[in-house]
């Protein structure tokens, strides 16, 4: 009887043989991100995306993925944990390869789809009520129904002024739009609590990063006394941070950054959150490849609520994002994005566009 075949990593057709990075930048917003490309021995390419990556990060990631089969997602995730950004991008790229190899969208590989479309959140920018109202109208006309609103300068100390802003936004958007408030982790729990009181009648989807999330005891003032849902996670890159918040009843929405965690890691965080009846709403302020990854993730989770997707106002930026992924996968209709249906991430990355929008060293 022949000896059982042991999966030999480097001889596998799915073994990763190269890793390339493409730093790109949006022409108007100057939002920049790094596209990561992995290629296997069999010639399948997979793409991922993260924020800025240093040469050292890239070298570390290359050393870890080299020769490993693209299916070794968990092994690679663990070994790349210290390099959050590359871990995230590599994870998307690996799953893109697995999807292409199996000719299935990633959500199907992962046991989905759990839904047939994904609710989308987008940030409104503007430092006056008028600017915010205008931004809301533009985004609403593009199909958006849920908006992240940033506090305006000097507003934090005046909760009634914030309420006035929301009165205007509500009047402009009607009863069927929704808002989350971005505290940018810059408030004290006391101030955040006063803002919750002033805004209770608006039924915010949640108050995002009202204050730093490291001091959970300080957060309790907010979590135990107010009913406004709290979202944290932009700076959390491991399950531990979320577990601490969930255990102490201080978290209603998990907001891991798709570009700093990747698909697999957020699925693990979501699995834990399910047992607290808590939703996952990944943060995202990068490019369209990570948006595609986020949509794949959304359709693999039972407790997904909404995906933040940047919606640049400038036509040039919008064009760039669409050209990178072959076509726009970020279009929103009545508050929802469609799920990609092609294999892997469901996009065809256009490397000419990556070259065209390459971020040049300053």
């Amino acid at each position: 009887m022949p000896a059982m075949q042991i999966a030999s990593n480097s001889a596998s057709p799915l073994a990763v043989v190269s890793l390339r990075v493409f730093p790109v930048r949006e022409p108007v917003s100057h939002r920049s991100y790094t596209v990561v490309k992995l290629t296997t021995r069999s010639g399948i390419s997979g793409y991922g995306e993260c924020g800025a990556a240093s040469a050292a990060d890239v070298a570390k990631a290359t050393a870890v993925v080299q020769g490993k089969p693209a299916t070794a997602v968990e092994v690679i995730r663990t070994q790349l944990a210290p390099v959050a950004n590359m871990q995230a991008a590599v994870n998307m790229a690996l799953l893109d390869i697995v999807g292409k190899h199996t000719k299935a969208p990633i959500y199907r590989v992962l046991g989905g789809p759990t839904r047939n479309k994904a609710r989308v959140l987008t940030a409104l920018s503007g430092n006056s009520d008028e600017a915010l109202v205008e931004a809301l109208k533009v985004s609403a006309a593009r199909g958006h129904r849920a908006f992240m609103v940033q506090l305006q300068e000097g507003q934090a100390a005046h909760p009634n002024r914030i309420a006035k802003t929301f009165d205007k936004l509500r009047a402009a958007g009607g009863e069927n739009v929704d808002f989350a408030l971005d505290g940018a982790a810059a408030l004290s729990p006391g101030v955040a609590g006063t803002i919750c009181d002033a805004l209770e009648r608006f039924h915010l989807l949640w108050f995002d990063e009202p204050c730093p999330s490291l001091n959970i005891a300080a957060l309790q003032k907010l979590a135990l006394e107010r009913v406004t849902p709290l979202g944290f996670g932009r700076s959390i890159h491991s399950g531990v941070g979320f577990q601490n918040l969930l255990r102490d009843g201080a978290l209603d929405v998990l907001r891991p950054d798709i570009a700093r965690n990747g698909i697999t890691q957020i699925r693990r965080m979501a699995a834990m959150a399910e047992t607290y009846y808590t939703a996952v709403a990944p943060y995202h302020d990068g490019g369209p490849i990570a948006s595609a990854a986020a949509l794949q993730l959304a359709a693999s989770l039972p407790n997904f609520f909404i995906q933040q997707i940047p919606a640049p106002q400038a036509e040039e930026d919008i064009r760039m994002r669409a050209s990178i992924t072959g076509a726009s996968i970020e279009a929103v209709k009545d508050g929802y994005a469609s799920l990609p249906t092609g294999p892997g991430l469901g996009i065809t990355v256009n490397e000419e566009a990556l070259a065209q929008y390459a971020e040049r060293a300053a």
Partner: protein
Amino acid sequence: MKRRELFTTAAGLFAAKTALGGIDCGCAFSPPQNALGGDAFHSVGSKIKITNVKVFGVSLTPTSDRPYVFVKIETDAGVIGWGEGTLEGKAAAVMACVNDFREFLIGSDPMQVEHHWQSMYVHSFYRAGPVIGSAISAIDQAMWDIRGKVLGLPVYQLLGGPVDPKGVRGYYHARASSPAELRELRQTAIQQGVSCFKTGIPEYYEFIETHAKIKRAIKHMEMLRENLGPDLDIAVDFHAKTSPSVASVIVKEVEPLRLLFIEEPCPPENVKAMARIAKRSTTPIATGERLIAAYGCRELIEMGVVDILQTDINHVGGITALWKVAAMAEASGIVMAPHACEGPIGAIASVHVDAAMPNFLIQEICSGVEPGPNEKVWAEWMGFPIMRMVDGRFPLPTKPGLGFDLTEDALKKYPFGGTRPMARVFHHDGSVAEW
């Protein structure tokens, strides 16, 4: 060839072990099968023995998702007992589980209900979830029915009741959806002496919800209070449709409505999660219909999460377990409002336990002010309008045991239509919703 040898050897080992009286548990730990059990009580038992255990699936409509699971225990004294273990959506599983207990029950003394309860629960090793819990519930109720008949007393008297001879206060479901219907319901309630209604919140909820949906839930509850009036008690069942995040927002806003309670504001697995709602609300919180045995309620009671427990006599472990939950709850100032949304046997068994609870609040029946088709069948079976209130209360039966006569013949019109799953509901993006 080698595989065959392996099987032979394994079978041989198993045979050798059982011949020696051991149990092959597949581990290194084989407890001896001692000969005690029934014989250990030879000198102190009642001399009555169980001769047969029959289980019936009863479907009032061929496609019912909750065929009743009734158990009939027969004894050599000629006394029989009925119990119910209806488990919505899982009838056949409970029926199979009752039969798993059959061999152990036959020849046992039906008067030793506490002892047999312990054996069914403890010796099930994995403890009881809803299937085992419902099977134990049915067997337990049937034994109590027999015990009452043998001792010549209604079960509530065996339990030390009644606390109130006028019966136990109950509530119907408010089957009304418009303000006009609710105002009419109020008039009927006043005429009938009914003092409380329960209804559910509309729609399905994601873990975070939109302003529009939260508003609709609140408006719905305001409509109930406005039209049912200030003097009727109103309970609102969230049915675990909401997360702690969403429930907390809604509950805070309906505090001025002074509801009797809100029920299952989040699903039952995470007690700390429910505590988040309780800590931020002054409206009493009720839960427990999905919990099994007093063990299942301990953490809720200990953490001060609930004001009202609603364990269901058809799942919690019958009369024995419902009574224990109430006893433990009393020590923490928690009152009881048992759930009843299945058949008439469990419902009336619940009334018996209620009547003996010093910390009783109210008894549910999933019925309206007008009896529906199910209640008409029940009356036909039992010969009296079982589980219909008089002046806002369920009257106490006066006959020994559970206080009704039921024949197998009466059930024959409603043969078992098979297990049907409970409702499967989805959000508008196709994802799974709680209902």
